[in-house]
């Protein structure tokens, strides 16, 4: 195993030398090898030899940079946010005072505005998640189990394609679709229906659209791992379509479905741009954070508000951890 793992490294380290494993030098019997010259002991080669016999050093080199990045940019930034929430702003100068206080937390937990917006945000996130799962399941099932390999490739690209376009472009596209003289109104008008206009329904529709690929892909990957023979076995034993889906497909896809819901739920929870664009007057937690960072210049309060979605997500993750869905990410 060790030899295999290091072979590419030694080949890369000493590109001019044939990537001959070192044990050839000390092969038992020691019969002289004719024709093939022994690789030269260049510094790069010596380094490879050293690394191949010191797996921990190897691991250290491999992980040093990403761990540094993760530690500094991710964990420290998050910690700074947490700390800021316990500071306050001098209302007179607008400067942050580094005095420890729970005022921001108490404000956020007890203020009726924050409570309303929190429940609204959770509601939107849940609704988006439910819609996305309902849409993603049949699409993912078709991709994984029904479509030909060629059609499957095309569908995977089709699902991924919206991700290559800018988030803003897509949000503004929906703004245009949902507007009073937009395409949705034009399509629905003959049936006596109307576009929902801008507001929470528009937010839910747009967010569902935006996060759908993130829900389809894990479910597709999860279903693809279910062997066809299991579906055949179910049919063989007398299971019609619905019992097969209920007893075999859904239980086996559940971890993948939950993995997908983590995406749609957490992304919806933190969104504020879509709400700004199609949400009309309604606000979500992200908007409150945004306003307090910008216009209100109250970074500690913004940090305290930002803790709400973090807490909700942690709660959600703790809940789904039991299902084993996190093994599937």
């Amino acid at each position, binding site marked *: 195993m060790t030899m295999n793992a290091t072979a590419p490294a030694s080949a890369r380290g000493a590109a001019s030398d044939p990537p001959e494993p070192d044990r050839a030098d000390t092969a038992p019997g020691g019969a002289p090898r004719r024709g093939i010259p022994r690789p030269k002991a260049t510094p790069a080669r010596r380094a490879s030899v050293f690394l191949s016999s010191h797996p921990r050093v190897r691991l250290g080199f491999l992980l040093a940079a990403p761990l540094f990045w993760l530690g500094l940019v991710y964990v420290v930034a998050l910690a700074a946010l947490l700390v800021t929430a316990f500071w306050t702003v001098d209302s007179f100068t607008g400067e942050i005072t580094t005095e420890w206080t729970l005022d921001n937390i108490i404000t956020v937990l007890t203020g009726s505005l924050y409570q309303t917006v929190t429940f609204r945000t959770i509601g939107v996130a849940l609704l988006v998640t439910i819609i996305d799962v309902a849409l993603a399941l049949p699409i993912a099932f078709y991709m994984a189990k029904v479509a030909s390999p060629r059609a499957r490739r095309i569908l995977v690209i089709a699902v991924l394609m919206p991700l290559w376009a800018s988030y803003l472009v897509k949000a503004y596209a929906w703004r245009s679709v949902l507007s009073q003289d937009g395409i949705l109104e034009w399509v629905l008008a003959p049936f006596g229906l109307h576009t929902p206009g801008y507001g929470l329904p528009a937010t839910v529709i747009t967010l569902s659209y935006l996060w759908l690929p993130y829900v389809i892909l894990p479910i597709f990957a999860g279903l693809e791992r279910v062997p066809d023979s299991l579906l055949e076995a179910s049919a*063989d034993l*007398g299971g019609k379509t619905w019992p097969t889906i209920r007893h075999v497909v859904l239980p*086996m896809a559940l971890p993948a479905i939950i993995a997908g819901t983590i995406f749609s739920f957490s992304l919806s929870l933190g969104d504020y741009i879509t709400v700004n664009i199609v949400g009309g007057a309604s606000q979500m937690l992200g908007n409150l954070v945004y306003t307090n960072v910008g216009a209100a210049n109250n970074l500690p309060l913004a940090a305290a508000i930002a803790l709400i979605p973090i807490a909700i997500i942690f709660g959600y993750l703790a809940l789904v951890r039991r299902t084993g869905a996190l093994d599937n990410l």
Partner: protein
Amino acid sequence: MTDPQPAIRLTGLTKEFGAVTAVDHVDLEIAAGEFFSMLGPSGSGKTTVLRLIAGFEQPTGGTIELFGDDVTKRAPFDRDVNTVFQDYALFPHMSVLENVAYGLRVRGIGRKERIERARRALASVRLEQMGDRKPSQLSGGQRQRVALARATVVQPKVLLLDEPLGALDLKLREQMQVELKEIQRELGITFIFVTHDQEEALTLSDRVAVFNNGRIEQLGTPAELYERPSSRFVADFVGTSNLFDDAVSRELLGRGGVHSVRPEKMSVGSGETGADVRNAPGTVVETIYLGSGIRLVVDLDAGVRVSVLEQNDRNRVHDDERGDRVVVSWHDDDVVALGGADVASAPAA
């Protein structure tokens, strides 16, 4: 064969995958209670025939009858046949007992009764202690038996087995062969067994169909197939054969056409006498010690390499080595004619 209605009747069964014809106008009748094997190399169409009978594939042409009922167009869950899959296809999220009870559950049988029946089925494969385990906690042989219990608990008229022993090691496979045979005798239902292992097919079956290129090359009892192969393919695929092409046959047997002689029907010595004995001189190329026997590879002077299987019994006197001159003898009765000149033109195996 008391039942006049065959368990399975295939008429002109054809399956095409794009330009490939996997099954090519197969006609076949399998009697009730028979242990029937479909033998052939990979890609010969045997598994496709099984999947057509199970209903996982729709035939391009032809019909499938199950005890006289045309089931060609019916869904798998609407056919009284059950399958033991090559990979067993046990549901990983269910316990062993739930797996076995699944067929009863989707048929709407009450919880108490289905657990009772599943337990009995598990007991019949001697796994009553394993009901609470997950399939992943079982060994290959145990999974195989669970698959068998799961397929038989719903009392199918015909049981289809798709290379069920392929993933087991030799010792376990031989043990499972005996068990399969016993279970089949106990249940008295028709078993259709797909395998590429000719020894397995010969050991287990009442009759064997040898498949090649989507067609049945030969259909018969194991003894018929082995003793009287009808074609060069069968002679070569079922057991080991020494094939004599047209020219060699003329020189050694005095007649044209392709012939085959089994290695164990030949002997090596200094020549035998008798009315129907044929002797052919040659040079030993290799002797392979097999334990119970010894295989000698001999280049006959007539221009063909033959394999001779000698019993390692107390009558054995020769200890031939590579390069020794010997005489290979066989009886004319043991020569099987494999047909005419068109086959003969093919290069010798």
